[in-house]
């Protein structure tokens, strides 16, 4: 539409000025028309260019009122018109895309900021009372005896459980709102070790077998720790005391593979993927929890562009496998920077 109007105006100007204007002046009028139209984007620019060339040819190039061209040099003028239409139009398109992207980035940054403010205030408001309960209950426990001591132990344990649920809720909110994992190259030993350290009470009654390769994973260490804590805790929760839990970690192609298996009753009947559904709870209320732990695992694996799967183990029990694909080439450790190694 804009192309039609601008080219129309240019044609009118050309016709009115015909008695005293040269071909060059008329071509200029069309160029201006193309320029204005191209501000509407590449489509409009190209249309205006083609229309301009046609109108210029029809009205001002001999033989008049036909599309034939007697003097071939006018073909160059037409070519320039089309080239300018495309060039300006493309430029405008590119600027528009960049503008839209930066607006979107700004919106995302604002949403991210809002989310993190909200999360940290929720986290603070819920954690402070929990910290007071835990603190005071441990103080009382230290001076209590017998049954009372056991009751206070229960308070401390439940406060701890609530705190873990809160951590899971906050992690899933963070991951599902699209926060990118902060990947680093982390030794598998370190990932497994820091997760197990958080599970001392849960693992008191479960012998552990570890098989951890001396290799690296490219992961967000904090999110991955949460994932492993949930998987091992899940195994401990769903197996009877004394039942062994096995943790294996190794490289599998360009991914790190962590496998957690147990000798318990295995997965509940139905498709294995259902265990990762929000609020899914396997074998009754007894096991405790709100059914969020495995959902968090799946969300964290997905955020790493990785994969998690649950399956039955030959001979009984459940196996959970998580793959964390590398995002980039593994570091070469030979190229360490200047080593000061100041021997003391």
């Amino acid at each position: 539409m804009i192309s039609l109007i601008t080219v129309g105006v240019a044609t009118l100007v050309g016709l009115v000025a015909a008695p005293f204007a040269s071909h060059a002046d008329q071509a200029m009028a069309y160029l201006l028309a193309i320029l204005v139209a191209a501000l509407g984007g590449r489509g409009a620019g190209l249309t205006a260019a083609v229309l301009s060339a046609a109108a210029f040819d029809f009205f001002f190039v001999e033989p008049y009122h036909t599309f034939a061209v007697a003097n071939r040099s006018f073909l160059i003028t037409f070519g320039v018109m089309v080239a300018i239409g495309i060039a300006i139009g493309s430029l405008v398109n590119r600027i528009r895309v960049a503008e839209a992207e930066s607006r979107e980035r700004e919106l995302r940054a604002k949403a991210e900021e809002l989310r993190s403010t909200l999360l940290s205030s929720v986290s603070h408001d819920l954690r402070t009372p929990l910290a007071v309960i835990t603190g005071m209950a441990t103080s009382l426990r230290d001076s209590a005896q017998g049954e009372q001591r056991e009751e206070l132990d229960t308070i401390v344990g439940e406060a701890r459980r609530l705190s873990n649920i809160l951590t899971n809720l906050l992690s899933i909110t963070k991951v599902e709102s699209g926060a990118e994992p902060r990947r680093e190259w982390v030794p598998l030993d370190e990932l497994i070790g820091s997760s197990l350290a958080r599970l001392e009470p849960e693992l008191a009654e479960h012998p552990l077998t570890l098989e951890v390769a001396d290799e690296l994973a490219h992961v967000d260490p904090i999110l991955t720790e949460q994932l492993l804590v949930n998987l091992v805790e899940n195994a401990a929760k769903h197996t009877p005391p004394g039942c062994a839990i096995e943790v294996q970690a190794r490289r599998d192609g360009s991914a790190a593979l962590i496998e957690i298996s147990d000798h318990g009753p295995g997965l509940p009947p139905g498709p294995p993927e259902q265990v990762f559904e929000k609020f899914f709870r396997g074998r009754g209320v007894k096991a405790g929890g709100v059914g969020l732990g495995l959902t968090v695992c799946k969300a964290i694996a997905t955020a790493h562009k990785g994969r998690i799967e649950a399956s039955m183990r030959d001979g009984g029990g459940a196996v959970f496998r998580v793959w964390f694909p590398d995002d980039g080439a593994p570091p070469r450790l030979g190229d360490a920077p200047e080593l000061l190694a100041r021997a003391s």
Partner: protein
Amino acid sequence: MTAAADTVLVVEDEAPMRRFLSAALQSHGFRVVEASTLGTAQRIATEQHPDAILLDLGLPDGDGLTLVRDLRTWSSAPVIVLSARDREDDKVTALDAGADDYLTKPFGTSELLARIRVALRHSRAQRVPDDPVLAVGAIRIDQARHEVNVGERAIHLTPIEYRLLVLLARHPGKVLTHKQLLQDVWGPRTHQTHYLRVHMAALRRKIENDPARPRWITTEPGVGYRLIDR
């Protein structure tokens, strides 16, 4: 341990939390002074020179970090930051600004007391000259001979592993951040944590029986490492 005379400044805006901390510390022989705002904390710190400070970072009238930075210009009294699990960045900033350690909420009385004792021991140990032999738990480092033993076992370390272990052993029980360890071993221009992680993993494989369940060097996720001194 002459804890009886030690004064701890508790900086916390939540009254119930303050009450718990004060009660727990007092019942274990500490003298406690309380502050609920940054302003009061700064005043008390300058007037009373507490032996240790427990600091919640989120205060109504400002960031607790300001107190850490101010304090470090004139005092070496240990500062222990109180923080939540998902605030790793805050912990690291506070530690790199000069805080000595942190406690992750929720924590129990025994953790609280253990941290305070470690911090107080460190602030005193700085006054005695360096002993050529460092002993932490079963780990013994002879700095004159560059020899390391874990129990009866002699351990052969690379220069980097040795340097890392000495750094940790000089601060037994205390967390050292990735940045602190990197700077001390590789110099101020290194920011690539994976160098540190890989050498630390190698060190663990030499001194731990089970490197994925470390007895001595524990990982503080997102923060750094700690050498256990019990």
